[in-house]
């Protein structure tokens, strides 16, 4: 145990031994600290579940709209139900929008002055962000499972696949969402207010989500848009998940999805932590 870590003032102290734990590596501490933060955020979610409710209602509405309103007009090819085509896209869209709440939560922490408190503690420098992305991942998992239930209820079925592939599909989905959480964290730390995090944090995902193969085949889009819609990361992930859930060629899209996710985390992880270290409340 280390000694002399400021545990001497009897006025502030009491009967509790205040010697901090020692002898763990910084990676272990990083994870432990992040877990404390994640637990706190999950408590918030349960205590004030509006966010959770909204993040479920919105994709459910989407599914119903797309299936029952546009579904008839969208031609997804012979022998394929629109709902089977749609659900992988909806899963991706759902987790991406869910991931965008990461930056909002962080901006709120800053607005409430909590960021200063956390930054004054000897906790790991990345823990507040890592904890937030972690709790958002848990929330996303929960929402995706609910969406799966909704999908199954309106006729979605897995085809030409097996359990391992389905699990891999959800894994790719959630990893991509986790990567987007770090982008959102970076935005949340870079902008100066909750409002800015709210609008600036969402606006850029709309073209990514809608100019993609999530809801309609890329071939149905105008020619100038197709190269982008075909190759941008959301489409790549949708294709990979779709192939894993309802069959189709796999390897290329799966590897590209993993590469995108890892690449995004590698860039935006350190970047967001850098912003975190510099920002102060208010």
């Amino acid at each position: 145990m280390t000694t002399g870590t400021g545990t001497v003032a009897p006025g502030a102290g009491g009967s509790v031994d205040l010697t901090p734990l020692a002898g763990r590596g910084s990676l272990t501490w990083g994870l432990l600290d992040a877990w404390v933060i994640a637990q706190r955020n999950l408590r918030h979610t349960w205590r004030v579940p509006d966010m959770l409710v909204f993040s479920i209602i919105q994709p459910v509405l989407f599914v119903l709209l797309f299936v029952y309103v546009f579904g008839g007009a969208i031609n997804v090819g012979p022998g394929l139900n629109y709902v089977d085509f749609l659900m992988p896209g909806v899963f991706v869209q759902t987790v991406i929008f869910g991931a965008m709440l990461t930056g909002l939560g962080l901006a709120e922490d800053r607005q409430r002055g909590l960021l200063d408190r956390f930054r004054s503690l000897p906790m790991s420098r990345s823990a507040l962000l890592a904890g937030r992305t972690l709790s958002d991942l848990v929330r996303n998992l929960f929402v995706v499972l609910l969406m799966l239930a909704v999908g199954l209820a309106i006729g979605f079925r897995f085809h030409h696949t097996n359990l391992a592939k389905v699990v891999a599909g959800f894994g790719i989905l959630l990893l991509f969402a986790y990567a987007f959480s770090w982008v959102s964290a970076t935005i949340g730390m870079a902008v100066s207010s909750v409002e800015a995090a709210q609008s600036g944090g969402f606006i850029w995902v709309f073209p990514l989500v809608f100019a993609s193969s999530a809801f309609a085949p890329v071939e149905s889009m105008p020619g100038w848009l197709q190269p982008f819609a075909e190759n941008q990361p959301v489409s790549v992930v949708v294709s990979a998940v779709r192939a894993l859930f309802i069959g189709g060629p796999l390897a290329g899209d799966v590897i590209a999805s993993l590469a995108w996710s890892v690449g995004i985390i590698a860039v935006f992880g350190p970047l967001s932590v850098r912003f975190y270290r510099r920002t102060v409340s208010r």
Partner: protein
Amino acid sequence: MRAVTDTNSRPAVLAEGLRKSYGNAPALVGLDLLVAQGTVHGLLGPNGAGKTTAVRILSTLLRPDGGRAEVLGLDVVRSANALRARIGLAGQYAAVDERLTGLENLVMFGRLYRLPVRRARARAEELLERFDLSDAAGKVVGAYSGGMRRRLDLAASLVIAPRMLFLDEPTTGLDPRSRLAMWEVIGDLVRDGTTVLLTTQYLEEADQLADRISVIDGGRVIAEGTADDLKARVGGHRLDLVIARGGDLAAAAEVLRAAGTGLVDVDHAGWRLSVPVPGARVLAEVIRGLDAADVEIVDVALHRPSLDDVFLTLTGRRAEEEPAGQPGDDATTRDLVTT
């Protein structure tokens, strides 16, 4: 004097030439500070003086643009991490999680200070008890009053019983009763050896709590010393006199003019007179003079100048007006006649 728990004779805070700008706007322009261990040091200044910026730099939240600072012998930039495990900070606005309960807040902070869960919990309960929050321990902080929130915030900054505590305007926004309670808590901490750096806009508060005071304005220290030192800089005392109704005000004023060092302020309606004097010795002379002039004395008193006057003398303007009803807002320090 106060118990100094550390044999180390190093100052608790040593800052030299701290500079910090936000964009092009300078907030600190060469701030120097020296705080001895086991003392309370007050940073006194009006809105925008740079108090919060100074506290943020010393508590490792902000990097200075220039100058250097050590807290408990550790450089605030190079040893920031080690320092965070030794200090406590209660910022200008209570920084506790509104959606957690009081207990959950303190346990969380304890764990982030890397206490094992069980001890973090025991410490949290101990602090809640001490700050009179035990009954509200299970309530969500969003439902706390402002005073309760402040106390919880202070408790959070004491989780590891730090030897160095930074308090940024600890009583701003509190009602008089909570303010007095807060003063008591701070007094207790210091009695037991904690070094405290506190900022305040309340002259009264600095006078009450601080062993030494740095008056800051425009991002630097414009005066430093004990409250007494600072008052002495304004020069001597002020003599206030009330004579019997219908007495000879002109004669009384003449006596005061002879004894004083400045203009005599005469309040005809209240039969009051006031004048700056060099020291307590003139009192006898004044009483003899009034006696000789046949003026009947109702009340006579010598006042040392308040920090209000200090601020006025140092900066040429008044500090923020204090809200009415502050504790200590009593006649002895408040009835100064400005001339």
